[in-house]
């Protein structure tokens, strides 16, 4: 393992003193400084593995109580040792438990793992950062509570950590925006003081997880993708367990029908009547005719339609799912058929499955468990070892590129064309086509993106992955397609793309950062936000 540097500007003596004091707070077994232990705080999916670009922790420590977190933050201020809080440390593809800045001390909150409350009458949970989707699911099942979690993939992630990195789920939009569905947080501020947001600021209020705002300027957003404090508790709104789930498919005959299909279904989803739709095209299936279509550059509409005419069949498929009482969701499906059928001639409709509660891994067969509020690790199946894998070409992980495009057919096609041009620019296999679909994470936008595989044993391939990732971020930014998350290697670059009025948003954040965290000890560099003393050097020697 490459040796981690000391935190920038911290002497060896001060670092040793800080470590000694940290040990007095959490006990010597829970302060990690050995090479062997710090190996566990490397990002196993890193595409800069073993290079000078890899971000390495100088130490790690793991508290179990809020009071310990407060003491740790005060010690960190005393010695100016930067802390990098992680919750479950499973933010794979974006950095896992590794810090943005080498020399940071990872504040591993995994052992703060208490489910503090679940109310299935008022539909909320209050949890500590180490609680995973699996943990909360088991807590709910053991008590036979009638609430659903909107789970992230994979399910070993932390509710708090996922929400604070703007993670997403798979059911109705108010729930699958995990930060948006939080209600109330407790934060240890950079000076060690404890703060609660929303109604939590009012002593004796019994509405902390019911009413988000309380009164006055909201500050909750400062604690996501940022470095303004250590979140030690967070409330989340949960959905009542739906009685049933209906899944359905709509197909439309013409390539140009996509825009109408998007518009019609937007009216359904934005009325709160459905989960996120999926859009795909049978025309994206590989074949020599598709290869020929893409060989001469991005095809014209005329070329696309000629290709479609040759292949035949529907142009686009929409997959939908509806959650709720049987009479309601059957009614919604009937409404969807009437609405889309009136707008798009030749559209076809199929109910594909119907499931009644309780929803379990056994009852849903081979469906995506995340669609049913069931935590799982199925996402790793896509990365499994294949029968014909050669030992020296076995991939070890991936980094993720997901960029926000308008929720229109034109926006979607522009996103895929940007990817296509980038693939040609950097010499990657050209696989983007005008038949690529979106992923729908958030309610009102599309995402275009994919995973780029990484290898601990193939630095040549990793270098290419970094070149590709960098070009994608820049080209997406130039087109106005911002990343919604970024790997720790590239958060500065990703943040730079949000540059309106000479980066006024980031400059405002820096103003707040310097006031709230004058010693710059909380998460230096997270999503491009550096404290004043490290802003120029970005934490590098």
């Amino acid at each position, binding site marked *: 393992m490459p040796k981690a540097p000391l935190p920038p500007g911290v002497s060896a003596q001060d670092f040793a003193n800080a470590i000694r004091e940290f040990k007095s707070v959490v006990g010597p077994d829970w302060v990690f400084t050995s090479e062997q232990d710090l190996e566990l705080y490397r990002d196993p999916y890193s595409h800069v593995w073993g290079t000078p670009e890899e971000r390495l922790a100088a130490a790690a420590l793991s508290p179990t109580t809020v009071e310990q977190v407060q003491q740790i933050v005060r010690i960190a201020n005393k010695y100016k040792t930067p802390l990098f809080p992680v919750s479950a440390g499973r933010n794979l593809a974006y950095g896992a438990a590794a810090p943005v800045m080498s020399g940071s001390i990872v504040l591993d909150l995994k052992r703060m793992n208490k489910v503090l409350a679940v109310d299935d009458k008022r539909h909320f949970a209050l949890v500590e950062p180490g609680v995973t989707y699996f943990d909360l699911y088991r807590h709910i099942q053991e008590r036979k509570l009638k609430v659903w979690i909107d789970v992230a993939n994979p399910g070993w992630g932390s509710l708090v950590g996922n929400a604070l990195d703007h993670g997403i789920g798979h059911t109705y939009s108010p729930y699958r925006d995990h930060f948006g569905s939080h209600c109330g947080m407790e934060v240890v501020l950079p000076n060690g003081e404890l703060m609660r947001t929303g109604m939590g600021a009012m002593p004796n209020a019994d509405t902390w997880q019911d009413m988000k705002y309380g009164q006055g300027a909201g500050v909750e957003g400062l604690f996501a993708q940022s470095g303004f404090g250590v979140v030690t508790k967070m409330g989340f709104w949960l959905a009542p367990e739906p009685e049933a789930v209906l899944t359905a498919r709509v197909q439309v005959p013409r390539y140009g029908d996509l825009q109408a299909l998007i518009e019609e279904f937007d009216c359904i989803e934005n009325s709160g009547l459905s989960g996120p739709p999926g859009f795909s095209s049978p025309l994206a299936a590989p074949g020599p005719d598709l290869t020929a279509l893409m060989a001469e550059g991005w095809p014209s509409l005329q070329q696309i339609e000629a290709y479609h005419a040759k292949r035949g069949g529907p142009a686009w498929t929409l997959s939908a799912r509806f959650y709720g009482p049987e009479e309601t969701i059957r009614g919604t499906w009937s409404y969807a058929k009437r609405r889309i059928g009136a707008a798009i001639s030749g559209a076809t409709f199929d109910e594909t499955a119907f499931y009644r509660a309780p929803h379990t*891994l056994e009852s849903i067969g081979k469906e995506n468990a995340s669609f049913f509020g069931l935590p799982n690790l199925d996402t790793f199946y896509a990365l499994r070892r294949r029968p014909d894998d050669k030992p020296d070409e076995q991939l070890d992980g991936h980094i993720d590129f997901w960029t926000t495009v308008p929720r229109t057919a034109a926006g979607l096609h522009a996103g895929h064309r940007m990817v296509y041009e980038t693939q040609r620019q950097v010499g990657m296999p050209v696989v983007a086509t005008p038949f690529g679909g979106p992923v729908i994470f958030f309610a009102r936008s599309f995402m275009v993106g994919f995973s780029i595989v990484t290898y601990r044993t193939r630095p040549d391939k990793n270098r290419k992955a970094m070149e590709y990732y960098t070009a994608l971020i820049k080209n997406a930014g130039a087109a106005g397609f911002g990343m919604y998350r970024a790997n720790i290697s590239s958060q500065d670059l990703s943040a730079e793309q949000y540059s309106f009025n000479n980066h006024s948003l980031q400059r405002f954040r820096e103003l707040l950062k310097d006031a709230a965290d004058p010693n710059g000890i909380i998460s230096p560099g997270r999503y491009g936000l550096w404290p004043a003393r490290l802003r120029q050097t970005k934490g590098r020697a």
Partner: protein
Amino acid sequence: MKHPAASVLGVLVGTSFLCSLAMAAQPAPDAARGKQLFQHICTPCHAPGSPEGRNQFAGTESLKNKYKGAVPAALEARQDLPVALIEFVVRNGTVTMPPFRKTEISDSEMHDIAAYLSKTPK
């Protein structure tokens, strides 16, 4: 460059002896607790699966593709898993399986899981 997992078997004989010495002062591993921990932590990737129902378990499928039937794909059905190998994989990961930190699986819990998998009733 050699993959970290590639040299595992080569060092197991030596490390298992050292591990035995190091663990001499520790409480005996609890295989029953290890079973609970395995089911809690490991089965989402290492469950046996069934062709009729859910079978998309990444760990089970990866091991099936690696060993091509020479050993069972489901870890609980294996009869050849030494403690040192199990513990090496927990702390180092292998291919896309990431390592587990001590805050996720403590040393004591790891010993229990290893005891269960290496002594599973066959």
